[in-house]
């Protein structure tokens, strides 16, 4: 996997267009699942993923992201969230709303506070057991549906939802200890 990643990065650095083909072949499904997780429709998701390849083409070089997959995932996610905001400026999508409300209940923050959150989240995620951490990141970073998480980790959907609820409670407690008013 590491060899594949460095080979693709080398193609990017050589300004070889086969870099895009290789990235699509290797990370296409991964990026598409992230975009679909946020947008819940394939047309916009495909556009986001295409924008991801363009962003990668323009950013590499000079950047040499490692791991490349996570970097591409972050780019896709940011593009998908921007598209989501644009699409849902006035109305709200019920599926996404459920996920947002879950987070709102444990992370009440203003835009100016957002900069502090990633460091705190890293700290919090470090305290979790590996499976709980994967479930949390899978749900709120990748926006995987509960059914996919259950399938991936050999749990029932009820068990996934229960564990996520407990993790959110722990996150709320953690943020309160760090001086955040929840």
């Amino acid at each position, binding site marked *: 996997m590491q060899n594949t990643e460095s080979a693709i990065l080398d193609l990017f650095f050589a300004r070889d267009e086969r870099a895009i083909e290789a990235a699509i072949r290797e990370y296409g499904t991964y990026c598409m699942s992230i975009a679909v997780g946020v947008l819940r429709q394939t047309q916009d998701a495909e556009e986001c993923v295409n924008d991801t390849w363009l962003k990668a083409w323009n950013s590499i070089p000079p950047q040499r992201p490692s791991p490349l997959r996570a970097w591409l*995932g972050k780019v896709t996610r940011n593009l998908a*969230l921007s598209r989501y905001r644009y699409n849902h400026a006035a109305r709200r999508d019920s599926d996404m709303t459920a996920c947002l409300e879950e987070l709102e209940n444990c992370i009440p923050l203003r835009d100016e506070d957002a900069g502090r959150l990633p460091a705190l989240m890293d700290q919090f995620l470090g305290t979790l057991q590996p499976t709980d951490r994967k479930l949390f990141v899978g749900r709120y970073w990748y926006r995987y549906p509960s059914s996919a998480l259950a399938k991936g980790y050999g749990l029932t959907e009820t068990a996934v939802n229960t564990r996520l609820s407990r993790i959110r409670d722990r996150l709320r407690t953690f943020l309160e200890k760090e001086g955040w008013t929840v």
Partner: protein
Amino acid sequence: MTGIVALTAITDINSAYVEEAALPDAILADTVAAARKPTRAERWESFRYFMNNGWVVAACCTIVAAAVLTFIIRAGRGTLPSEHGSHMTGTAAETETETAADTAPETEDNVHTAYAGNAEAQTWQVWPGLFGSSSGTPNPPIPHPQIPSVPDPKPKPPSTFPKFNTNPFYGSQDGKSGYWG
């Protein structure tokens, strides 16, 4: 939109956590496929598949729909088979006449005679035995329920209209001879 801010903010968490939480491509492909709407070509292909292989289902649906429609129409007309298996319309019951064959004990012969002599009344008897006895002979018609007459609660006032006197000697002096006598 606090939630969306939070979702955006946690984008920049440690890449190692992001990497470890990624599901295998096989599950991700299922997730993507579930969100994907079928294209026009795929919809047309599925329709063609149904047309090629779904004719049995379509035939069954047609038969069931026809049966339901028939039931509804017959229920509207009141021609549904009764509890005893008789297949009788209101018209047939009303036009049924008392014949000698009717009053006679029913045998195989006189049943046929009775219904043969009353063509109008037997219009309801389309397929004798279809809903009734398996021998082909029709079941006896169900008698109409006797509705008890309700007495008039108010007594009628005495009529003031003069009654015509039918006495032939009315008006005679001696009571024996009348106008005509």
